[in-house]
Every structure is written in C-alpha cells, then in structure tokens.
C-alpha cells in the first residue's frame, strides 16, 4: 500500500530533539558496542566484499542493516509494543563481475513483534530471516536470501585484523556543528567463506570482506548533499578508507577524511588535506537519469599512493525506495596504479540530496 513510507522512513526530516548525539570521542567497549545504540537516530552495519567460487566466477556483494529511530521516548504504559520506535531495513545486493548483473533485494520491519531485532549488547541483528551475528568464537555469520531474485548468501567471516576506530578513537566529525559527527568503527579485512546461490545454482565461495559500523544522530552538516565513500583492500596488505563529503555545489567539505590501515593493523587518520580525489569518468543511470562519477583518481602522497579506482559493475545503482527511501550507487571496484587491490565504493546524493537526512 503505502509508498508513503518508502521515501519517508529513513528520510525523515526530524528534529534531533530527544536523540543522543556524538559530540566527543566515546568510550567504546566491545562486544557491547558492536550492538545497537538505540539512543542515536541512525545506525548501520555494512558488509561489502568480493567473493570467488572454485572456478573463475567473481562476485561483489553487499549486506547492510540500517536502523532508524523514529521516536526516542521510552514506551509509555498502555502503549503497544508494536509501536515503531525503531525501524530496521536491510539491503542485499549481489553483483556478477563477469556479466555485470546486479541482483538487489530489500527488507524493512519495525523492531518489536519478534520479526526484527537489534541486540544492544553484541552484534546480533535479524530482520525476518536475514541475520548478522557475532559468534562465540569471534567470527561473524551473515545470512540473507530472497526468493524474488533467487539469491541467497551465507558467509562466515573471520576478522584478519583488529577493529579500526576511525577519526579520533572512533569519533568521526562530519560537519561544523557539535553533533555533526558519528561514531565509526570497521573491520577492514575479514576472511570470508560460505555459500552463494544465484539463479538456481549454488556455489562454495570465499573472499575478503569489509565491515563498517557507524551510528549518530545529526551527523551531516546542513549543506552536505551526499558523499563518495571507498573501502579499498590493497594487495600490499594495507587498507584505505576515504570519504568525500560533497556540498550542494559539488565542492568537497573540509570534513572529508579517511583512514589508512597498515599491514600490522595500526591505523592513521587522514584529513582532507592529505588526499586528492578526482572523478575521471561518469556514468548516467538509465532509470533515474542520475549522473554518477565512475572512475576516480586517488592521490595520497604521504603513503606514496597514486591509484585509479574503477567500477567492476558500472550499473550498481541501488534503488532502496522500498526500504530506506534512498537511491545510491554501491558496487565493487578494482584498484590499479601504484598499488592494486579491490574494494567497494558508495556514491550517495546523486538522485536526491541527502541534506538533513542523516
């Protein structure tokens, strides 16, 4: 019925009143902080990575859980437990690198009522039968399937490096005002093995995966239209995360930043002054007409990196209007230049401005 809510749920133009905001480096405790932070308005858990089967087939995938708070107040007596104080949405996208086909499915449910939940003491998310859970052994198991697109994915992921706290101890400022910030942590490299089903055939797959966990309330500054984000795993054992916050006029905001993770797992915060990010080619979506940058030139002199980042599936536009209300580009990328590698890129705000949304 209600397309009404498609656009609206994660796109709520809400006053931040009643929500907690990230204003200073938090004191993080794991595994507790792998769990949900319902006092903050938005939160997401992203898994992106490249997988290969025993043959030559290569895949890119994304499984993301989004949590959106609608009402920060505690339930009142007599109130229904089904009140949608918190909503969980999830995106599953599997791309075939050979054919360039992208398969996308989405889910959405309120937290409560037993069909969706997000634990607040560890990584334990479920949205209907889609799950993302940390096990006793410290691995993470993710599972999601969709009958409409005939896709299914089940992976066990083992962190190959320690957790990275971006910014200052996980505190990641994204705008000029206090509270224009998020808490942002990542496992930049997880070893994955599992099963991937696509169009009726099932394959054992393995590969490497990136995990992001980020939460905040009014994290973006008021004039930010969108962002271009990259999580790259370089062949030399390093990882590079960087994002460019774009203003409405297309210029990069000074809060654009990144993190360089060394082979030993130590990390270094990168400010916008440390890097140059330049779009080289463009791709226009035949469905939305949005014009996305495709190939990027990334220069990071302090690390001696001069990279070309190229999409492995040009049409990786994700239409999440049935769940999060957003349309964005999220797909696997290859890295060439001074170092090679692979990773994922996320380009938002090209269809509609994200201003005021996060």
């Amino acid at each position, binding site marked *: 019925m209600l397309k009404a809510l498609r656009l609206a749920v994660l796109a709520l133009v809400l006053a931040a009143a009643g929500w907690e905001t990230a204003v200073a480096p938090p004191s993080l405790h794991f595994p507790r902080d792998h769990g949900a932070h319902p006092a903050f308005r938005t939160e997401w858990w992203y898994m992106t990575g490249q997988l290969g089967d025993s043959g030559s087939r290569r895949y890119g995938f994304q499984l993301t859980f989004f949590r959106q708070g609608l009402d920060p107040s505690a339930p009142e007596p007599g109130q229904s437990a*089904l009140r949608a104080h918190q909503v969980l949405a999830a995106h599953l996208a599997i791309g075939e690198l050979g054919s360039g086909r992208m398969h996308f499915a989405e889910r959405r*449910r309120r937290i409560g009522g037993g069909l969706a939940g997000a634990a607040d003491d560890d990584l334990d998310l479920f949205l209907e039968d889609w799950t993302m859970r940390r096990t006793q052994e410290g691995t993470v198991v993710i599972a999601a399937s969709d009958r409409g697109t005939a896709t299914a994915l089940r992976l066990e992921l083992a962190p190959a490096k320690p957790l990275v706290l971006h910014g200052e101890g996980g505190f990641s400022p994204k705008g000029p005002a206090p509270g224009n910030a998020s808490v942002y942590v990542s496992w930049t490299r997880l070893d994955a093995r599992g099963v991937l089903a696509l169009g009726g055939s099932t394959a054992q797959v393995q590969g490497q995966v990136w995990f992001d966990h980020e939460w905040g309330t009014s994290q973006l500054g008021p004039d930010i239209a969108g962002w271009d984000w990259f999580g790259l795993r370089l062949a030399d054992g390093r990882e590079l995360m960087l994002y460019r916050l774009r203003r409405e006029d297309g210029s990069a905001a000074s809060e654009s930043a990144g993190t360089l993770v060394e082979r030993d797992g130590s990390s270094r915060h990168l400010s916008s002054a440390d890097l140059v990010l330049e779009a080289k080619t463009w791709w226009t979506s035949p469905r939305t007409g949005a014009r996305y940058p495709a190939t990027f030139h990334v220069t990071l002199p302090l690390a001696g990196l001069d990279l070309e980042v190229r999409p492995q599936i040009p049409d990786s536009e994700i239409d999440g209007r049935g769940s999060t209300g957003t349309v964005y580009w999220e797909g696997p990328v290859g890295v060439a230049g001074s170092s090679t590698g692979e990773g994922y890129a996320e380009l938002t705000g090209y269809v509609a401005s994200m201003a005021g949304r996060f």
Partner: protein
Amino acid sequence: MLLRTFFLRPVLRRPLRFVTTVIGVAAGIAAVVATVAASRAAVASLREGVNEVAGRARLEVTAPAGLPEELLGRLLPLTGDAVVVPVIEEIALLPALGDAVRVLGVDLLVDTQVRDVEPDAAVLASGRAANMLLVGSGVLLPQRLAERLAVRPGDPLEISIRARRRTLTVAGTFAPRRFASVWDRVLIVDIALAQELFGKVGRLDRIELVPRPGITEARLTAAARLLLPVDVTVEQPRARAAAASRMVRALQFNLTALSGVSLFVGAVLVATTLATSVVQRRGVLALARSLGASRRQIARSLLTEAVAIGALGGALGVAGGVLGARAALTSVRSTVAAVVRGVPATDIRLPLWLAALGLLVGVGVSVLAAILPLAEAVRTPPVQGLVGERPAFLHRPSRRRAAAVAAVFAVLAVALARAPAWDELPVAALLASMALLGVLLVAVSPILDLLARGAAGPLARAAEGTPIRLAIAALAAGRRRASWGAGAVGVAVALAVAIGTMVHSFRTTVIDWANQGMRADIWIRPLAATTGVQVGRLDPEVVRVAERLFGKDVIDPFHTATAYAGTQPVTLAGGEFAVVARRGGVTFRDGRDSRAVFAAALAHRAAVVGEPFASRFGVCEGDTITLHVADGTLSRKVEGIFYDYSNQQGMVVIDRNDFLRHYPDDGPRELALFLPSGVDPAAARDRLLAALGGRFFVEALLNRELRAEVVAIFDRTFAITRALQAVAAAVAVLAVLTVLFALLGERRRDLALVRALGGTRLQVAGVVAAQAALLGATGAAGGLVVGLAIGFVLVKVVNVQSFGWTLRFLPPWPSLAVTGALVTLACLLAGLAPALAAARMHPAEALREEG
C-alpha cells in the same frame, strides 16, 4: 385493428383498472427486486470487501478471540517464504459522517507488499506524515471520504471507538486503485495505533501471509501449522467471506420469500383483471369471432394486454425496487454489521440480470395469469357469447372433483408443514402455504355453488325479498365468473389475514418478552450510527464510572464474543448473574422464575442458552454443551432455556466472571443498571452522562424508552409486511369491483326483465348490491379460514425453522373481524357503482339489444 378494439379501447375507457393492475404487478416486482438487490449488495460488498481488503494475502491465521501478537515471532522461520502481516480490523463510528467505518490496522512498513492502495503525492513526500502514522495518531482516509468531510492532512478527525471519543490526525489520503466502494468507509492506521485504540494491545485479529515467489499455498499452510498452536486456524481469506455469506444467507432467504408473497398478490391481481376483462368483453369478442376473427387473433390481443401489463409493471417494479432496495439495505446493513465485523457498502448497484429478471418475471406472471381467461375466451363458442350466459348452458363444475383436488391440496399442505427444514431454510413450509391457497382457489367455486343452491331455498324464504333471492340465483348462474371474484377476494383476504396474524403473533410475543425481560432501569450502549448500525462495544472505563456512581451490585455489563459449536459460530455472552439473580427479568421456556435459574446457574457455574441455540443444536435443560472458545473449550451444563428474539445465531450466556476468564475485557456490548427503588432513573441517567463528561459517545435509554424502541424496531422491520397487507386488501376490493361489473354485463337481460315485470330501480340495485355482499362474504370467510391456517404455518413452522423462535399463535381477532367486515363493506361499496349502473339501465333497450 383488433388490437385497437380489444386492447387500446378498454384501456382508454377504463384507465384506472389498467393502471391499478400495472401498479399491482409493479408492487410485487418492486418488493422482489428490492430485497434481492439489497441483500445481494450486502453480501457482495462483504465478499468483495474481504477479498479486496485481503489484497495479495493468500492465507490468514485466525482464532475465535484473536491472536496474541507473540505469534508473529513464531512465524519468523516462515519469513523467507512469505510476508507476514499483522492486521486488526474493527469498526468505529465517525460522528461527522454519522456512519460506521471500518478501521484497518496494518503494518504500514510492509503493507506495500499486500494491498493496492495508492496514497496521494503529499503523503509520499512528507516524512512528517510517516512519523504521524507510525509514532503518532495519524490516519489515512479514502480520498472521497476526505472530500466529503472536508478534511485535509494535519486536520483532527474525531472518531468514536468503543464509545470513547478519540481524536486522530489526518496524515493523508489514499485513492483505491479498484473497488473504490469497498474502501469508501475504510480508515487505515498503523497496527500499533489500532491496538491501542481498540484496547487490543498485545493482540491481533489476524495474521496475513503473502507467499513469496515460488511458494505454494499448501506448502505455506503446512509450514505455518507446524509453527502455530493447534487452536489457531490457517485458511484462505475467502473462507471468511464464505462464512459471512452463510450467515447472511438465511436472512436473505426469508426476505426473498416474503417478497415472493407480494409477487403472488400481484399475479392474482393480473389474473383477476384479465379474467374480468374477458368476461366484460365477451360480447365484443364473440362478435369479432362471428365476423371472422380467428381464435389466434383473439388470443394474440389478450396476450398483448397481459404482456403490456407485465412489461409496464415489471419496468415500474424494477425502478421502484431500486429505490426500495436503498431502504431495505439499511436494515440488511445493521444485521450484517451485527453478524459479521464489517460495514457493507451503501451503494445499490442494480445488476443488469436482475433488471431483466424483474421485467421477465413481470411479463411471465402476467402471461401465466392470462392463461385461464385466455382459454375461456378462446373456448367459448361465439354464439354463447352473443346470446348471453344462461344457467342452462352452463357447464356445471364437478363438485366431487373439486373436493378431491382440494383435499389433495390440504393433505399436501399438512405434509409439507410437518416436513423438516431444508438446509435450515423453511422451503417446505412456504410451499405448504401455497398449497393452502390452492385449497382456497379450488374450493371456492363449489362452495359458492353450494351456497347458491343451498341458500336459495331457506335463505331466500327467510330473507322474504326478491333481491336476495335473485342475487343468489344470479350468483349461482354466473358462478364461474363469481368464483373468480370470490377466489381473488379469498386469496387477498387470506394473505392479509396470514400476514396480519404473523405480525400480530410476533409483535405481541416480542412486546410481552420485552416487558417481562427488560427490567433494568437504564441501558447504556455505544451510540448507533444514523443508519442504525450498532458500532462496537463500550469502553471498560464506562463500566468503572457506572460502578463508582451506583455500586457494583446494580450493574449488569453484557459482554459478547463469537464461539463455535462444532464449526457453527454462535454468540457467547457474559452477564452479571449475581445481579440478575436478585432482580430477575428473563423469561424461561419452562416457566421457572428467572431469579432462581440465575442463582442456580451461578452456584453451579452453569450456562443459560437462548431458544434459537437450543433448537438449532437440539439442546435441553440439564444437557451439557461444549463450545470452542478463545482459549480452548468450554463445557457447561444448561440450567435454563430462555426466549430470545434478539438473536438467530444462537446465544449461550455464562456468568461475566466466567466469561472474562476466557476472553479479555474488550468492554461490554451494553450495560444495564438496576437502580434501588426510589431512585429517579432520569436523574440517575443525567448523573451518569455528566460523569462520562463528553468523553464517550453513548446512548443511555430508560426502561420505557428501550421498550418503545424494541417496538419501533419491530414495526420498522415489518413495515414492508404491513404494506403488503394493505396491497392485499386493495386487491380484494378491486377484484370484487371488476367481477361485479362483469356479472352485471351478463345479467343485463335478467335485470331488464325484472324491471319490465315491474321491479323497481331500488330492487334492481338491491340485487346487484346483495350479489356484491355475498361474493365478498364468501371470499372473506374462505380467506379468513385459509389465512389463519397459513398464519399458523408461518408462526409455528416458518419462524421456528428459520429463526428458532417460538411464538405464540395469536390471531388479531378484533382486527380480523374488522378486516372481514371491511372487505364485505368494501365489496358492498364496490357494488354500488354497478348497482347504480343497473338501476339507471333502460329495460327496453337492454331487452332489445338482446333481441
């Protein structure tokens, strides 16, 4: 040419008769079309409503008293195969509309995958609207309703839920893609808000399952059953629609049967009109025959008249039926709303087939009614028609044969009346009524004959007057014509008497029942819609306020819920037995004092059951009944069986505390207050309403008001029936009038002879008037006897079979006597005009014509 002579000319000359006949047919057709259209509209909109509202949901998880919301979580393993959707579907009153609306509580976050309702652009763009709907008290309205109420997004919308005044916020409107009428009276809110509004926090009415691609219903059903408790049902939405239709069907049948009676009255009218017109025009017809017109031509012209009457009457009837259907729908809607939780649409759409059928039935009935007169007209040799009918030529009807046929009909009627209901419908009993009318029609001619012959001697001597003797002789002579007339009078009287007897028996029984049973001083119930639809229950808060004001021991809240006897839905009710045991009030079938019965029921944790339940399930006092209720089964001994005319589904009443152990307190359907003696009920009502302080939409009725309302509801329900009674009486008078004119035509020569032999004008007029009175009296007497018999069948068989109600057989003697007298008087008056015509007749001319 013939057509103009035989059809147009009489019509133009006597437009009143033609018009009356047409109206008679129209009335019959209208009654049938109205009831069929109204009940079909109600049933169809229910079925359509269930299917449309179910959307893509293929399976529904339900239980008699709803489901705990935890079951949603139990279905988690199913979520890969199906979208799992919680639903609350309730009714509420929209005071601004004065009508009931359906409130659909759904999970607005997933419902896109279930239902096709397109919200407007403003809602699409607004995050505020979404917030209002999901965490506020936002409601979505159908666009047409929003326009009608002139509300816009952001406006408050007042609604009465369980009689409590609630204010929602209009979050937006939606435009249904199809079946706009289904959604016309539907408000959409989020499931959580629905739970809160209807006091169903933690509970759901049903869970819908929308299979994902490649999943079969059977597989989903099997998987769901494995996950759910055994007392929960997993079935297709249309099963719910079918159950609703089944409940409405009995009602539909009774209405249709009743309207069939009016059609029958119409048919009798057509037959009488045509028969008399044949008789009247017999001279002209004979002339035409002797001048060379063929039988076929004569037949064609008569048939044309019948078809014209039928078609005109049919067309008028169909048009009138549509208007009538609107009125009928109101009563059907209330019944439907009471039986199933739905609000049928208010639109009447006349299906083409029904319009065609109405026309066809009109024509068919007319043609059928024309067959006998037609045979008569065609068979009569021209010469007989030309010389006028004389007793000597008359083919004497075989009395023995007639008596035998009448006896066969009578035996058939008795057998049919004793036959059991057919599929819970009183088909045989209604056929028995038809057979009784058959007895009347067959018997009337020999009776008249007998009367004429038998009375000719002693009666005429006793009456010492020429007029009566002549009248009797004339009747005997023209008895075939006369028997038509008396038969028509008889059938009309019989129908009027039967209907009158049924209504009177029913009304008196119900009034006595109300007087004995309704002992409380004040009744409080949710405000009803202006359409009469009772909406929902009373908020439990109302009970608490009343308890605070008057004390717990004078209050009898009456709760109802649906339970199942086997697979049949019945009403399970909870009343405060302790209060009723003190104050009494209900009439029990075995005549015991209600206080003793309730005290015993309270002491033994027993139930009392309504008579319809007892007759439906063959239950007697002392038996133990078992029902499927919300939390399993409930077995109770039956302490007493009470008369119950408020319910035909069957009702089981247990103590309220017992009831609330099985069903959650959703609030009672009504609340009865037994005030201590000396307390002024009106003042107490004012106190109560003041204490409720405008927070609730309730009606509080005093004892006499409620009883008056019972009678008013009764009279409203039987308004159509009473109108039929009037039509029947009118038909009787009309029949006499036309028959007398015909007889007069035949007896012209005899009357002229009487005048020529010295009879006065007064004497001649007296002959004709006496004829009329005799005819009327015979018809009235026969009709009275047969009418009482039919009334007996209606009261004692049809009612019991269709409703399970025992009614006393109470013919309205005074009004029956008045009816008989009135019909005879009407016949006399009707005879006046022909009598005057006879008196004015010039004897010489009349004799010469014959010459």
